[in-house]
Structures are given as C-alpha cells and as structure tokens.
C-alpha cells in the first residue's frame, strides 16, 4: 500500500548503509548502488502513476497520525521530482563508476552518494517541516563531503565557502522552524497551512519571507547566490553534474512547496517576480563574464532558477505548470551539460575556453552531445528549453506581467550568446594556449571512457525524448500545478484521520 | 584477589549504582556488562596484582578526608584574609612503591588535597613532583606524602610478584 512511499528514501539509504559496511567488495558495492537506484526509479514511476490524476498519497511513519508523527506525502509535483531526480542519480552514478578518477570511484564515494539520493528523496517526500530540515541536512552533508571529495587545496577552499554558507542557511532554517513552532505549535506542513492562515499577518508574512530567504540561499536566487559559482566548479565532474542538476532544485522545490502550501495567498508574488528578474539577469551576466566552461554553466544555473521563480511568482496554474515543466527540463539538460563538461575535461585536462578549441574536428560526437542540450538551455526550439520558456512567456503575458517577460526574453538572448561562446571557444577555432593534455587535439587521442560517454548520451537522449513526450508531461505539470495552487486536497489527505 | 577482579566488581558496582537499585537482575546485568566492557577494552598496561586490607583502607580514607577538610579550611582562611602567606614550591618525593597503581593513588590524593598538586611523576624512580602552595619545609612536606604512601601500601599490599619485576614494566605501555 502506501508503504511504497517511503521506499525512495529507504532504498538508497539502506544501500548506502550497506555499502559503507561493504567497502572491501567494490563490485558488490556497485551492484547494490545501481540496483537500489534502479529500484528507486521503478518505485517512483509507480508512485507517479498512482498520483497522476491529482490524488495525494500519505504515509504515516511509525503508524503515528500526523502532528504526532512524521508523514510522507506524495503529490504529483513530488512524484515528478522523484522520478526525474532518481533517474539522474542513477545515470550520474554510472558516469561516476566509469570515471577513471579514483577518488570518485573509491570506496567512500558511493555510500555518500546514495545518502545524497536518499536525502533528495526525503526532501521531496516529507510533509513535516522539521523533517524537511533533517532531509536538507542529509542532502547537504552528503554534498559537503562530495564537493570536497579528493581534498585538493582548491576543493577545500571552495568547499569551505559552500559549507559555511550552507551551514548559515541551515541555522536560519532551524531558526525559522523554531519561530514557526513557537507561533503555531506544530511542524506538520498541512496543519501549518491551516494554522498559519489564522495568525497575525505581519508575522505570517515575515515567516514566509524568512523561509524564502532560507530556501533562496539553497536555490541560489538573487542576491543569495554568490556562493554557487565559486564552489560548484571545483568538485569532480559527476558531483558537479548532480549538484547542478538537482541540489538547487531541491531549494526551488522547497520554495514552491512552502510558498504554495504554507503561504498560499500569493502575498509574495510581486517580490518573487522582482527576485526572479534580478536572478535571471545577474546569472546570465555572470555567465557572460566567465572564461571557464563549468563556471559559465554554473552561472546559468542561477539564471535558470530565475525562470523557475518567475513561474511561481505568477501564482497561476499555467505559471506553476510552466515552472514544474521548467524544473524538469532544467534538471535533465543541466546534468547533461555538466556531464559533457566533465568529458571535455576528461579528454583535454581543462575546461578553460582559452585552452580549448577545435574539439569539433576531434570529437564530433562530443560536440553533438553538447550542442543539443546547450541549444535547449538557451531556449532554442524545438528542444525542451524552448517549450519551457514558451510556456513561461505565455503564462506571464496571460496575466499582463510584461516587464518580467521582457526580461526573460532578453536574458534568453544573452543565454544564447553565452552558450554560443562555449561552442565557439571549445568546439571551434584553436586553443590560445595548449591544453594540459598534449595530444588532446590530435587524431590519435585516447578514447573517452565508454561508461561516461554512454551515460552522458543517455541524459542527452532523455532531454530529446522530453520533446516528444511534451504533451503528456505538460498535462502532468498542469495537474501538479493545480494541486499546488489549491492545496486543499493535499491538506485534506494529510489531515483525514 | 586479582586486579582484574577489582576492576570487574567496580564496573559491576557502577552498573548497579547507575540503576539506583540493588537487585539480582542489576547485579547479574552488571557482571555481564563488566565482562563485556573489559573484553572490549583490554588494558593497555601490565596488570600488577595487589592485595586489599579493608581496615587499613578505612584508615586511609579517614586520614585522607581529614587532611582534605583541614587543607580546605586553611585555604578558605587564606582566601578571606588579606595577607599573602603563599610560599609556593615544587618538591620531589621519591616514593618507595614501584607499583604504578599505588603511585597513582598517592599522587591523586596529593592532588585532591587543597594546597598541593602532583605536577609530574618520574616513572623510572617513581618520584612525585609536587607543587605546594604553602611550603613548610621540604622535608616536612615530603614526609607527609610518604606517610600517605605508607597508609596506601598498607591498604593495598603488594602480593605475588616482587616489586622489582613490576618496576621494570611499570612505566611502559604494552
């Protein structure tokens, strides 16, 4: 029955625990990890199918009713996030296994990675505010370890930025939870939705904005994003890929969940739209100023987060549906791009544009693997990014939010500019300085690790498949958005004895 | 009466005290836990067998408590009177015992007593270095420590092995 709801957390967590204990047998460890993530996907898809019509599944952990115990809740939005995230996690694990960097394939990587997977699932599933904090901490702690995996000087330095900022965010989070509990006496989110509506509006708005700040740090919105481009690029490629694809989206998820469930009156609409515009613009300007592939891509994460917030800020079904759609698109495409970035580094030893060039002639397949998601990211049709942006534009214009649409379009053009800069710098022309790997641009170059290329191809293929499945996905997004805009079903499902 | 037995009974007693009730279940549990813990944490030192004389032990405790109160009173007086009578010194007291456990007990009692603290122990010669706040005279202070040692030795007389053997292994870790 609803026992399956907990599986997306328990499967990777159990597998993580086992692989901690099984450090000595790498093959067994790997099969456990892959098996667990595969099973997670299967379970998630099943959950998705069960909630596709807008129903909400509730699982009471320990059998305790909500407010006493912790509940896990699957609505369509969380189910979608689960499916996408577990798929990306599996593919990136394959990529990591295929990576020749020992620190990534070593005994410590997988358990931590699986815990990350469990944490992400928990973030999507939990219906309890404090448990969300715990889930965040699981995810973050795993990410601290992963970002500093390898322990090089730069990783330690930039990991420090990441960890300090995240810790600060966590402290603010726990502060917000404490304040909320003090004000309304519960940490169950559905119950909160009911009780928060009854308290002093000033306090409620302040809490709402406080949560926005807390999750905004994680989601890297303006002006809380500075840490991201300084820290993401130093991690190992699979780690950066999964961070870029998933972690900030966990923040976005939390923003959407809290702003639609707990502070559902749309009081923050204007603020969100302003933040969205600034985030888009700041991110894309940052990207244009960079010279390093991973840094460029990192700044684009920020810019893209702005689009997601844009859809949320409209507080309409179409706007939220567009955001859901955007999030899914972005997770896939961003993961793909960072995986390609990793392959570029793998082949040449660098990601600096000035040391790259002409890769198109040496590795045409890699060029194709980059070009498709890059165009998608820039919103070029017919790729998923286009559909995502189109729906946002439609949603924005439908309610007359012209300014934000104008910004979105302007930023879109700049994004194209920036993607083309990567293309031109990496795949066209010739390097200004020789890359670290001397024969990187010789025909006789060594082959890229097959598993890495394979998994990258898989993600790119997924981003293309997305285009063909766009109609049903959009319908899912609309149903999910309807559930977010009107959370009564969610609240009802949780509170029904 | 081996040291191991002392340890086991101490641990079992701790268990019982923690549960705040002397019942068979607690005693049995205490024994099990004690054995478990001793098995988990093997001693990293040579264990030296010592004996145990309860009467002498009581005498030691009483003497020690008396010293404790006396010294505390003195120190309290010192604190509340403006005159500074401090005459600090570090003196060395070569003990006669070569058993590390005994030396430790003596050193601790010295440290517990207000106005004196064991600064250091030379494991070769089992000499205590003691910081005293109010030096009467080196000899006098040394003598009182040695008296304390004699009381301790009376309570825990060395058995089985000659002192010389333990002296060799005394200061070394395994």
């Amino acid at each position, binding site marked *: 029955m609803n026992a399956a709801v907990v599986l997306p957390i328990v499967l990777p967590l159990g597998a993580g625990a086992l692989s901690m204990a099984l450090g000595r047998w790498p093959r067994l460890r790997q099969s456990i990890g892959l098996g667990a993530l595969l099973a997670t996907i299967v379970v998630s898809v099943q959950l998705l199918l069960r909630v596709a019509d807008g129903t909400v599944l509730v699982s009471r952990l320990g059998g305790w009713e909500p407010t006493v115990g912790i509940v896990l809740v699957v609505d369509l939005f969380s189910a979608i996030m689960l499916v996408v995230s577990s798929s990306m996690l599996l593919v990136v694990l394959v990529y990591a296994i295929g990576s020749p960097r020992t620190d990534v394939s070593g005994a410590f990587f997988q358990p931590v990675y699986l815990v990350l997977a469990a944490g992400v699932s928990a973030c999507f599933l939990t219906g309890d505010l*404090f448990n969300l904090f715990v889930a965040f901490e699981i995810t973050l*702690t795993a990410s601290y370890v992963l970002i*500093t995996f390898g322990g090089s000087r730069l990783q*330690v330095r930039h990991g420090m930025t990441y960890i300090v900022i995240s*810790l600060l965010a966590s*402290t603010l989070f726990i502060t917000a939870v404490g304040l909320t509990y*003090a004000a309304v006496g519960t940490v169950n989110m559905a119950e909160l939705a009911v009780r928060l509506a009854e308290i002093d509006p000033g306090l409620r708005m302040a809490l709402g904005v406080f949560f926005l700040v807390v999750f905004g740090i994680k989601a890297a919105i303006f002006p809380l994003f500075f840490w991201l481009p300084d820290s993401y690029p130093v991690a190992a490629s699979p780690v950066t890929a999964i961070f870029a694809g998933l972690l900030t989206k966990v923040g976005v998820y939390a923003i959407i969940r809290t702003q639609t469930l707990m502070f559902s009156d749309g009081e923050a609409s204007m603020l969100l739209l302003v933040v969205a515009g600034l985030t888009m613009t700041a991110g894309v300007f940052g990207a244009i100023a960079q*010279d390093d592939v991973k840094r460029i891509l990192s700044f684009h994460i920020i810019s893209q987060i702005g689009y997601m917030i844009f859809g949320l800020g409209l507080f309409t079904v179409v706007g939220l549906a567009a955001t859901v759609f955007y999030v899914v698109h972005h997770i896939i495409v961003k993961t793909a791009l960072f995986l390609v970035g990793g392959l570029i580094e793998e082949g040449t030893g660098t990601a600096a544009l000035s040391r790259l060039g002409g890769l198109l002639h040496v590795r045409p397949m890699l060029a194709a693997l980059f070009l498709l998601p890059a165009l998608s990211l820039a919103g070029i049709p017919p790729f998923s990014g286009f559909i995502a942006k189109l729906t946002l534009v439609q949603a924005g214009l439908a309610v007359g939010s012209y300014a934000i649409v104008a910004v979105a379009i302007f930023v879109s053009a700049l994004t194209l500019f920036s993607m083309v800069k990567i293309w031109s710098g990496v795949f066209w022309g010739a390097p200004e300085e020789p890359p670290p790997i001397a024969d990187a641009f010789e025909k006789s170059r060594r082959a890229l690790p097959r598993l890495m290329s394979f998994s990258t191809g898989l993600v790119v293929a997924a981003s293309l498949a997305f285009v063909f499945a766009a109609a049903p996905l959009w319908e899912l997004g609309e149903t999910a958005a309807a559930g977010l805009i009107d959370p009564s079903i969610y609240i009802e499902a949780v509170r029904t004895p | 009466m081996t040291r191991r037995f002392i340890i086991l009974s101490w641990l079992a007693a701790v268990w019982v005290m923690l549960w705040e009730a002397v019942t068979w279940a607690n005693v049995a549990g205490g024994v099990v836990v004690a054995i478990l813990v001793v098995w988990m944490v093997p001693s990293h030192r040579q264990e030296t067998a010592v004996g145990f004389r309860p009467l002498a032990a009581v005498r030691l405790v009483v003497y020690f408590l008396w010293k404790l109160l006396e010294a505390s009173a003195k120190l309290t007086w010192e604190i509340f009177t403006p005159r500074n009578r401090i005459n600090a010194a570090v003196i060395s007291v070569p003990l006669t015992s070569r058993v590390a456990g005994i030396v430790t007990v003596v050193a601790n009692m010295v440290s517990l007593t207000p106005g004196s603290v064991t600064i250091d122990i030379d494991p070769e010669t089992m000499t205590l270095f003691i910081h005293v706040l109010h030096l009467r005279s080196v000899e006098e202070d040394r003598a009182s420590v040695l008296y304390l040692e004699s009381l301790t030795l009376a309570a825990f007389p060395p058995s089985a092995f000659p002192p010389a053997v333990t002296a060799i292994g005394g200061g070394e870790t395994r």
Partner: protein
Amino acid sequence: MTFVLALTVAVLYGTGAYLLLQRNLSRIVIGLGVLGHGANLLLLSAGRAGRAPIIGDGAGTYADPLPQALALTAIVITFGVSAYLLALVYRSWVLSQSDEVEDDVEDRRIAEMATRLAAAQEQAREVETADDDPDAVS
C-alpha cells in the same frame, strides 16, 4: 520564552554573525558554533518550560517535549557538520598553512579584468576624441 531568553538568543545570534563575517576560518567555525547555540536555544524556547518530561509522580506541568527532541536532533547535526568543517580546516592547514579564506581567484581575476578593460576603454576614448576632431587641427 522570556525576555531574558530572547536577549540571550539575540546576543548569541549577533556574536555568531559577527564572527562569521571574518576571514579567519577558526573564527568562522567558532561563529557557527555560537550561532548554533543560539538557534538551539531559540528552538527549545519555542515550547513551554516546565518539569522534565519524564513521566513520573510529582507535581507541576511538564515541559513541552517536542522542541527538546527537535533541538537534540539539531544539536547533533550541527555538531556533525562542525566536525567536518574542522576536518577541512585541518586539511586546509596541512595543504596550505593557511587559516584564512582568501577571495575566489577566478572572481578576482574577472574583477581585475573588468577594471583593466574600463581603464583601457577610458584611454581609448581619450585618444578617439583627440583625432576625432580633425576640424580643430586643420
């Protein structure tokens, strides 16, 4: 929550924040510690105070046990993460003998580039205005 507790919370947050705004890693870690204490105190005082919530006989209202459980979890989590941060400080020192968070190199480089470009542009503009005025010369 009493006024005194709120004041304590305020001071802990304030001092924690102050320490966090420094570049010295040790201070940052300590600041996070102080901030964590403040947060835990705030969390605990979100519930009512009272007798320890251990069911027994005796009089008086029990304290709210939930914030206690939550704060306990939070304490342990904060501890764990701080421990990891300490491990990083350790490693950072081993690697670079530095306890300071230097600025991000790439960010600085871009900032410098921007300044240099602006200067160059300024210069170019001056030159341009100079020979853009042929009438003045002829």
